[in-house]
């Protein structure tokens, strides 16, 4: 047993930190918040150059064939600088869905382009009912002569306005169970009856869209995986993306703690640095404990997923439940310990506080995942 990172993984961390400290500064992040794109072509090309857009795809599809533990390292660093842009939606949602559900020709068509930074993708799964389970999928796909016609409203779809292809979950049949009858479709940008609306968000580093489909025609070849049997692939995508998100959240929380301890050492009140006072020390210690625990559970889930362990579902829910609470608490305490300056637009803390909130509700919050844990341990 060895529950630490390898030398290669530590090298990846060092490379990523250096790159992001140079390229993804606070100024860069704030500029991207103000515009719809959320990313620049130049930055996206550099991510591709580093090999990060294809990190977890097999080599035959233009990737590096690395695992979730490796990805977690990278995600921590991206979370550290609240990296904006469609990395998550392209690499972990759209891309992973194509990898998990797609046929070899479908993978060949898309994954190398995603990895090379030539195309972007996303997954349109959730709807106004805001459910993460299969019962939440009510959009429909009607069989026609030459393919399918998709109808429905998808909500909270990340970066759909940037995507060259949207993987849409829709129901081809009412099955015996909610899982039964869910299918995935590749819907290209500009398809007929497809409307994408960018929504103003509290966390401006994350762009969310409403996607409406009105009898949007797609050819039979757009079906991704088995007709009516795509839910298991969706579940795997959600699981992996959730673990990656946990990694990103851990990295953000760690950065908040770093900023806070640095500040507590230099900010003077009553003639002493505020870090001298136990009222500050104890909060900082609580932050550290929350973060270390969050990391432990995240790394464990990433390892379990890479091993295809039977514990992956439980490990994932344990991680997301813990990390959701931890990042929220840590980022709020960070603001508290900074005092007034932490509440300003000028200081970066609010970027983390808002990212903690948007991440908390992505793929289910702590309450949702605790209930899943309860089910998985047969309570």
């Amino acid at each position, binding site marked *: *047993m*060895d*529950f*630490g*990172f*390898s030398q290669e*993984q530590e090298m990846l961390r060092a490379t990523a930190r250096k790159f992001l400290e140079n390229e993804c500064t606070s100024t860069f992040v704030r500029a991207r918040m103000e515009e719809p794109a959320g990313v620049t072509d130049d930055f996206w090309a550099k991510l591709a150059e580093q090999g990060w857009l294809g990190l977890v795809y097999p080599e035959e599809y233009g990737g590096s064939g690395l695992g979730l*533990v490796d990805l977690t390292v990278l995600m921590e660093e991206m979370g550290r600088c609240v990296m904006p842009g469609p990395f998550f939606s392209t690499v972990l949602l759209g891309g992973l869905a194509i990898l998990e559900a797609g046929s070899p020709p479908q993978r060949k068509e898309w994954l190398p382009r995603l990895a090379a930074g030539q195309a972007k993708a996303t997954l349109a799964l959730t709807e106004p009912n805001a459910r993460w389970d299969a019962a939440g999928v009510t959009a429909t796909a009607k069989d026609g002569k030459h393919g399918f016609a998709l109808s429905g409203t998808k909500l909270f779809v990340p970066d759909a306005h940037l995507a060259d292809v949207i993987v849409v979950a829709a129901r081809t049949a009412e099955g015996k169970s909610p899982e039964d009858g869910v299918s995935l479709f590749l819907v290209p940008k500009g398809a007929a009856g497809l409307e994408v609306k960018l929504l103003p968000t509290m966390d401006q580093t994350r762009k969310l869209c409403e996607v409406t489909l009105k009898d949007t025609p797609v050819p039979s070849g757009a079906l991704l995986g088995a007709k009516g049997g795509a839910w298991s692939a969706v579940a795997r995508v959600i699981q992996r993306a959730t673990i990656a998100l946990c990694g990103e959240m851990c990295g953000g929380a760690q950065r908040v*703690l770093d900023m806070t*301890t640095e500040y*507590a*050492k230099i900010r003077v009140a009553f003639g*002493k*640095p505020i*870090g*001298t006072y*136990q009222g*500050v*020390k*104890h909060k*900082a*210690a*609580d932050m*550290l*404990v929350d973060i*270390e*625990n969050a990391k*432990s*559970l995240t*790394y*464990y889930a*990433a*390892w*379990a997923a890479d*091993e295809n362990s039977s514990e992956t579902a439980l490990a994932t829910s*344990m991680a997301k*439940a*813990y990390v959701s609470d931890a990042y929220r608490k840590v980022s709020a305490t960070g603001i508290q310990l900074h005092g007034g300056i932490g509440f300003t637009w000028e200081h970066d803390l609010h970027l983390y506080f808002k990212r903690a909130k948007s991440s908390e509700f992505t793929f289910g919050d702590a*309450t949702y995942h*605790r*209930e899943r*844990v*309860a089910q998985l*341990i047969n*309570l």
Partner: protein
Amino acid sequence: MDFSLSPEQETFRQTLRAWLKANIPREWKHVGSSEIPRVEAYELLKTWQRRLFDAGFIGLTWPKEYGGRGLTFMEELILQEEMALAKAPPILNVLGVGMAGPTIIAYGTEAQKKRHPAKILACEEIWCQGYSEPNAGSDLAALQTRAVKDGEHWVINGQKVWTSFAQVADWMMLLARTDPNAPKHKGITYFLLDMKLPGVTVKPLRQITGEAEFNEVFFDNVRVHESQVLGGVNNGWQAGITTLMYERLTLGFALQTRLRIALESLIELARRMEKHGRAVTKEPLLRQKLAQLWIDTECLRVTGARAITKLLRGEMPGPEASAGKMVWVETHQRLQELAMEIEGPYAQLWKGSAWAVEGGVWQHSFLRSRANSIEGGTTEIQKNIIAERVLGLPKD
């Protein structure tokens, strides 16, 4: 990153599992949360520890020449996991095994190392810890018990307090002031004290549970031979801190094991109890609380594994280990509170009532758990340590 075991470790696990199945005393009936050896179980637990020693399943990481097995913390982790799965009884000589032994091995003379560790493992010598005093708790270095040199002996006068096991202990890890003129951390010496020496008086202290599990210990001109100094005169603080580090590490594994056992028991309790006409396990809020305890317990296990990895790689235990005690305390106290909540009005009934749930065992462990955030360094002190030594915040 790899959580799987090597073939040798897997064999070790299987052997251990089979042994535990065959050797856990029949009289041991695990009820509720019994993480601390209860007075009435001392004899049984003594036999149990002896059995573990004879089979070589205790002191795994200690050197072979001092009664251990010379194995790594990996085997220790496997041992603790298997003990939890088998709901094995706890170790009686927990302070000897968790603290005194490792400190003697680290700081002792050859004679001390030959004399004590094996007997500690075999439960032939029960140890207690003479650290806290009426005026030195969190500020341990303020201790006032004096040791004055007289020929080949040190003469001890003073008082210790909150001393668990003193009523049955053969030996004490004693911190006493040998140089009152030195700065407070520099004038302290660590003694190995024979509790049968003339002038040692143990007075039981009745605690919140009604039992007298800990004591006051008085020293009235107790003469300790100079060969009983551990780690050098006036070097006691260093040795004493080492003890605490081991406590947080080794004892930490054991406590985590007991936490897992307690949680399994709590879930069994929850399955049997009803609240407002339906099973406790079907109450959404209680499900949330039980699930969170499960997560926190697992978290301790995984965080422990990270700490072990650091040790196996030759690094010192980092923030993961320091945080462990705090997390364990908070989780365990929450677990005990939840046991009370699950019992509802029955939580009021004490041992002896025919209506008491499981003989009132949870009421005892609930009350006992209040000590967790005080003993072995208060939570407030742990937070100071993390803030100052890990995060580098300035000392007052």
